[in-house]
């Protein structure tokens, strides 16, 4: 590598490191707040009087669901785009995006910790937080738009300079993910900038609560798919390299991402089944569409296992167990991602329950839901991100991981801890325990007296998860400070297998599918939106109840 090329590679790496480590800080703090919550809810500690469960819960939710995941996905997507489209480039947009995201995060975090925004990460109106919290949240989103623009700019550069060639798959996946994200965040940006900010400053006297919730969930569910697409970027493009295997199919990978782009957004009402003001027919429509978005996950399950099996066969291994044993479970990057995939089987099926129009009545807003999203964002997404960090950090720093065995145990503990905690949450959720509640004692009334053992079990799982998170912090920081530079910094991505076949041109386009996605989202929301505009109800003045 020439000196100039190495210098520009290091400059790119610094940008990705900034994203990934900002995410890491959020993750480690988020884990600490999670531990406090689990113990408090299980009544396993007597909380000091200043302890504010809801402030801790808000911080945990915002740091984990919004900050950690987002910084990691911006970092990973920037990394795979840059490395699959090598060229001389400006890093200005990448850095501006990072700074805007960080400033937004710090503003929101300050307001939460100061007690001015104890509104949880869904910030449902008419709970009225400080305007600076909403502005901070908006800046976090705006920062991601800048990062998205950078990714799109690189894709456009490739198209101009490589006419007739396919866009490299990693960049295709990253660009599709961020196009989906851009469409989805239009909802929350409208909610925050048009309604919440003016209202919290006192410039408007009331807020249309149902409209704000519709806009929030227009964004809230695709947020979930943003996490999953972030994980899928790694599962398709990076994971096969861990066992020197091949990507099952280039065209099916693109099809999966296009289907996620199309179907992630028009499904948000499945979070609003129990709400007034939205007619049953729209709830049923969003159930059907949500079931549709399960299809790309079926495709993914097939592609992943097929890739495992193709590799195992070249080693002369046939059958389920021989294939499973042939995989590199002693490589922390693979182990973490493999466990993530196993957790997603649980998360996926639980999700079908929650998305079911009438079955959701049994679980809505119970802690079952919390169990569900811990085996989706906390499992498949988070554990994939941690495993991918084990692959990526040596390529960003040139340093060997400190240490491989800690990283391996970190992944194992996270898997076990998540199974224990989410199992407890799923079970006690079916017994009716609510989520988002500081104490679930209810003076021992009725069914509430059956919940305590499950909360202890959840706290035990939470403790294992906390230990695991701290081990990740040790590895992430230890690698930066302790080890010598021994690792090559080049990253390779998986190549398609012989089975793959040529990719149709229609699956190598992004913008046209983006237009279709936008139209689908508008169609799915036109009905309920028109009805809420026709029958807006009354505006709620809002208040601060904490």
């Amino acid at each position, binding site marked *: 590598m020439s000196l100039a090329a190495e210098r520009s590679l290091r400059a790119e790496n610094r940008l990705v490191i900034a994203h990934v480590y900002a995410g890491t800080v959020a993750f480690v703090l988020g884990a600490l707040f999670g531990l406090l919550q689990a113990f408090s809810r299980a009544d396993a500690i007597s909380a000091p009087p200043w302890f504010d469960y*809801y402030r801790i819960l808000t911080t945990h939710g915002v740091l984990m669901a919004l900050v950690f995941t987002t910084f990691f996905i911006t970092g990973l997507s920037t990394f795979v785009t840059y490395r699959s489209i090598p060229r001389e480039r400006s890093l200005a947009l990448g850095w501006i995006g990072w700074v805007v995201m960080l400033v937004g995060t710090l503003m929101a975090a300050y307001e939460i910790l100061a007690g001015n925004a104890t509104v949880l990460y869904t910030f449902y109106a008419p709970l009225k937080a400080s305007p600076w919290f909403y502005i901070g949240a908006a800046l976090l989103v705006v920062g991601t738009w800048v990062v998205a623009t950078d990714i799109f700019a690189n894709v456009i550069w490739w198209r101009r300079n490589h006419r007739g060639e396919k866009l490299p798959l990693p960049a295709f996946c990253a660009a599709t993910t961020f196009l989906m994200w851009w469409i989805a965040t239009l909802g929350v940006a409208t909610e925050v900038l048009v309604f919440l900010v003016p209202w919290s400053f006192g410039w408007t006297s009331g807020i249309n609560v149902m409209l704000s919730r519709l806009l929030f969930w227009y964004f809230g569910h695709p947020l979930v798919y943003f996490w999953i697409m972030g994980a899928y970027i790694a599962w398709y493009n990076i994971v096969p390299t861990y066992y020197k295997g091949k990507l099952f199919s280039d065209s099916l990978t693109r099809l999966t991402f296009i289907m996620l782009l199309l179907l992630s957004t028009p499904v948000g009402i499945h979070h609003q089944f129990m709400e007034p003001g939205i007619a049953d027919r729209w709830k049923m429509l969003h159930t059907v569409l949500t079931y549709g978005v399960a299809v790309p996950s079926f*495709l993914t399950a097939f592609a992943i296992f097929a890739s495992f099996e193709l590799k195992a066969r070249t080693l002369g291994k046939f059958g389920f167990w021989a294939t499973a044993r042939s995989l590199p479970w002693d490589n922390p990057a693979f182990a973490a991602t493999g466990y993530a995939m196993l957790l997603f089987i649980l998360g996926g099926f639980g999700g079908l329950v929650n998305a079911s129009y009438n079955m959701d009545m049994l679980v*809505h807003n119970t802690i079952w839901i919390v169990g569900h999203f811990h085996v989706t964002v906390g499992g498949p997404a988070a554990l994939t991100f941690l495993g991918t960090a084990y692959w990526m950090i040596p390529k960003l720093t040139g340093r060997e991981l400190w240490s491989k065995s800690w990283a391996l145990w970190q992944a194992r503990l996270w898997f076990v801890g998540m199974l224990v905690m989410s199992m407890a949450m799923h079970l006690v959720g079916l017994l009716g325990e*609510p989520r988002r*509640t*500081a104490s679930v004692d209810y003076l021992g009334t009725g069914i509430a007296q059956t919940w305590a053992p499950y909360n202890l079990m959840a706290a035990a799982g939470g403790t294992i998860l906390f230990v695991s998170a701290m081990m990740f912090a040790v590895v992430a920081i230890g690698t930066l400070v302790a080890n010598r530079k021994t690792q090559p910094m080049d990253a390779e991505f998986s190549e398609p297998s012989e089975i793959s076949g040529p990719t149709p041109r229609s699956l190598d386009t992004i913008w046209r599918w983006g237009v279709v996605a936008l139209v689908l989202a508008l169609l799915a929301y036109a009905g309920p939106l028109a009805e809420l505009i026709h029958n807006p*109800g009354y*505006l709620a003045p809002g208040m601060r109840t904490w």
Partner: protein
Amino acid sequence: MHVHRYERIWIAFGVIMLVVFLSAIAFASVADNINPPSGMQTIDPTKVAQTPPFDHPGLRKIGDGRYEAYYVAQVFQFTPSDLKIPVNSTVSFYVTSPDVVHGFFIPNTDVNMMVIPGWVNTSTHTFTKRGTYLLICHEYCGIGHQNMFGKIEVQ
């Protein structure tokens, strides 16, 4: 586009499974009338205490074994907080909020509603077993959210 035969089988299996699940949902909706609460009535949240019937929340008997229960959910209590009903009663719950969003959830039943200021939500349930049912606010509503619960005694 080339799609491997095994993959076609797998996709077909997945899609058929989804269609079966959806049919079960649709059957429960149409044949058993199990539908989520989707109240369409609006109410001025600043005037709940003056708007009948929420100016006098509580239980009304409307027929043989049939009741309507009007609830106000507000920080941090339900009014009425306790309800007594005979076993095998069918109760239609109507609930609204004068302040922030609350939840209205009775574990062991399918009464599960979001209570949105400006709207009246509604759900109906037949209580076939005696005992004490817990009514909880299951949406975070503020610092005293965990104290917001009530009881329904089925006698």
